[in-house]
């Protein structure tokens, strides 16, 4: 197991290296940071000083090595726009995005899996047909439109929930959480639904098709022939056999939720990393963009590792090195 984890981390290294190269290339070749930072009026001496300060007079590979060295230490330089350390900005914004993403993922799984099981078991009931129709909406409507419709309904017309922001947040060390106050929780509901709806319908459709597949198998028929209660057959034998593909997709989707919270955060003015990113794009704030890119890559790599480990937990056939049959 340990060897497996080590080998996966070693495999992740080239991925991270490639992403960092792209991030760095962005740094070096997209726009001229010096021109952005100096503004309208500057002397040649000021320009030279800044170029030296930023190390831009060094050769490409030296710059890349410096960038890598700093990145490994979590040091991504100063934001051009806010003139604050990028790492600090991201650490400040990460709790908002992570809380939003985890809530969205929780909604997607806690609602999507049971709906998938139900529609798989009772294919022809009217409720299944309703779920499937509803899921088409979830799949086909763009996120920003869902967000705006939710705001229109629940904030503008009904006035139940806030339309933007995070509400009151409590600070737990460096982490800021919205879970501890009523206004924080209320502020989380609409964006979490908006962000999770697509994943919810995706997971529901995936679980449904996997259930249909598994329910046809001989071992399910045999479980019925052994007289096991339906609850055991459906949720024990059948659902567990659908889990491997569901874990794969759910893991990738969690990465996607974190990475692509941008739209939702923009619609709800959610003070997370996605909003920071989109504002940075507007200002060509390359250090923030590069750091964000690398962070998202790290998130995907980590989630993939966890997904692989979960396979082992779920499917005994993947656990090698035990005495086999003959």
């Amino acid at each position, binding site marked *: 197991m340990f060897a497996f984890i080590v080998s996966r981390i070693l495999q992740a290294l080239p991925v991270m290296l490639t992403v960092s190269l792209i991030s760095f290339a962005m740094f070096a070749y997209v726009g001229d940071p010096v021109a952005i930072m100096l503004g309208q009026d500057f002397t040649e001496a000021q320009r030279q000083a800044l170029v030296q300060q930023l190390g831009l007079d060094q050769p490409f590979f030296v710059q890349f090595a410096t960038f890598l060295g700093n990145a490994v230490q979590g040091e991504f330089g100063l934001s051009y726009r806010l003139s604050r350390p990028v790492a600090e900005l991201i650490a400040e914004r990460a709790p908002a995005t992570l809380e939003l993403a985890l809530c969205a993922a929780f909604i997607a799984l806690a609602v999507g899996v049971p709906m998938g099981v139900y529609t798989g078991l009772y294919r022809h009931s009217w409720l299944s047909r309703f779920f499937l129709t509803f899921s088409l909406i979830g799949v086909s409507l763009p996120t920003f439109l869902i967000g705006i419709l939710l705001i229109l309904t629940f904030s503008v017309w009904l006035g139940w929930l806030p339309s933007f922001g995070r509400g009151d947040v409590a600070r737990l060390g460096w982490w800021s959480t919205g879970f501890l106050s009523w206004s924080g929780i209320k502020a989380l509901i609409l964006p979490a639904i908006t962000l999770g709806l697509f994943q919810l319908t995706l997971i529901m459709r995936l679980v449904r098709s996997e259930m249909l597949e598994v329910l046809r198998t*001989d071992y399910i*028929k045999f479980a019925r022939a052994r007289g096991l209660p339906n609850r055991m057959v459906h949720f024990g034998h059948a659902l567990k*056999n659908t889990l491997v593909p569901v874990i794969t997709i759910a893991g990738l989707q969690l990465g996607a939720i974190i990475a692509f919270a941008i739209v939702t955060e923009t619609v709800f003015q959610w003070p997370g990393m996605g909003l920071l990113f989109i504002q940075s794009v507007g200002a060509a704030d390359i250090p923030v963009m590069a750091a964000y890119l690398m962070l998202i890559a790290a998130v995907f790599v980590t989630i993939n590792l966890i997904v692989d480990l979960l396979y082992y937990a779920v499917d005994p056939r993947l656990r090698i090195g035990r005495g086999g049959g003959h």
Partner: protein
Amino acid sequence: MSETETLPAAGSAPATAPLLSVRNLRVEFPTRRGTLVALDDVSFDIHPGEVLGVVGESGAGKSMTGAAIIGLLEPPGRIAAGSISLAGKRIDNLPYEQMRRIRGREIGAIFQDPLTTLNPLYTVGRQLVETITTHLPVGPAEARRRAIEWLELVGIPAAAQRVDSYPHEFSGGMRQRVVIALALCAEPKLVVADEPTTALDVSIQAQVIALLKRLAREKGTAMMLVTHDMGVIAETADRVAVMYAGRIIEIGAVRSVVKEAAHPYTAGLMGSIPPISHRVERLEQIDGAMPRLSAIPPGCPYNPRCPRVFDKCLTLRPELLDAGATRAACWLYDPK
């Protein structure tokens, strides 16, 4: 179990009351192009401790009969007429939950392919324990003890260790032994074995059949043994029913059916088995193929292939008639 030898005569019942009684069973599949009749007027009995072999070509309705008995016909298939009774009680019209309690507890089932019948994600021990605790009033510790006992009984070496193994850690033959243990662990009175050896190596087939036969005898379990292997039937069954196009066309004591088959189809079937006693140049074969369910000819369904067909066969459907040692659905035995 009774020590008296049950030697049922020609297709007729021995003196005891039947354990399973199937009467005029008709199974239909509604399709877009009309209703297919998969089983038509199927009647037979199985007595306590008796082994009934059911033979026939693929699609003759053997497995369908088994599925109807355990109440697990694949939808949209349904029982359209007739009855199935277990120990005198109708079971074909029970609600799902009541029938579920009978499955496993009173009627066990063994499926064809042991590689796919076991859930790959659970240990064999867990699958045995859940079956035992579902049907018998025992706690988890006792259920586990019995699970190990059953694995020993079906001949799994080092059962106490193997109980925690997963299905993929067993060979095909060993898995079928586990399936047999699963089918028998709640001590049902009847086992429906649907081609239990078809998916196994020939060398393993004999072992598994011997095991089934031994356990059925020791536990006094009656068995409906569905197969297309006459050798297995001859070795294992007390009586045999021959099916063709969804109907039973001959039924009788196994010796009589093998030695003096009355129905031309059964005779053809027997002729296609290579004899051991002498060498034959060429095995007999039955020309043509069994009709599709959507195109069963009027009269006797075997009439297009029958070498002894006459005009009555083309229009009227024969019932099972006394035909010497067996009962056969053939106009040749019409007393009139």
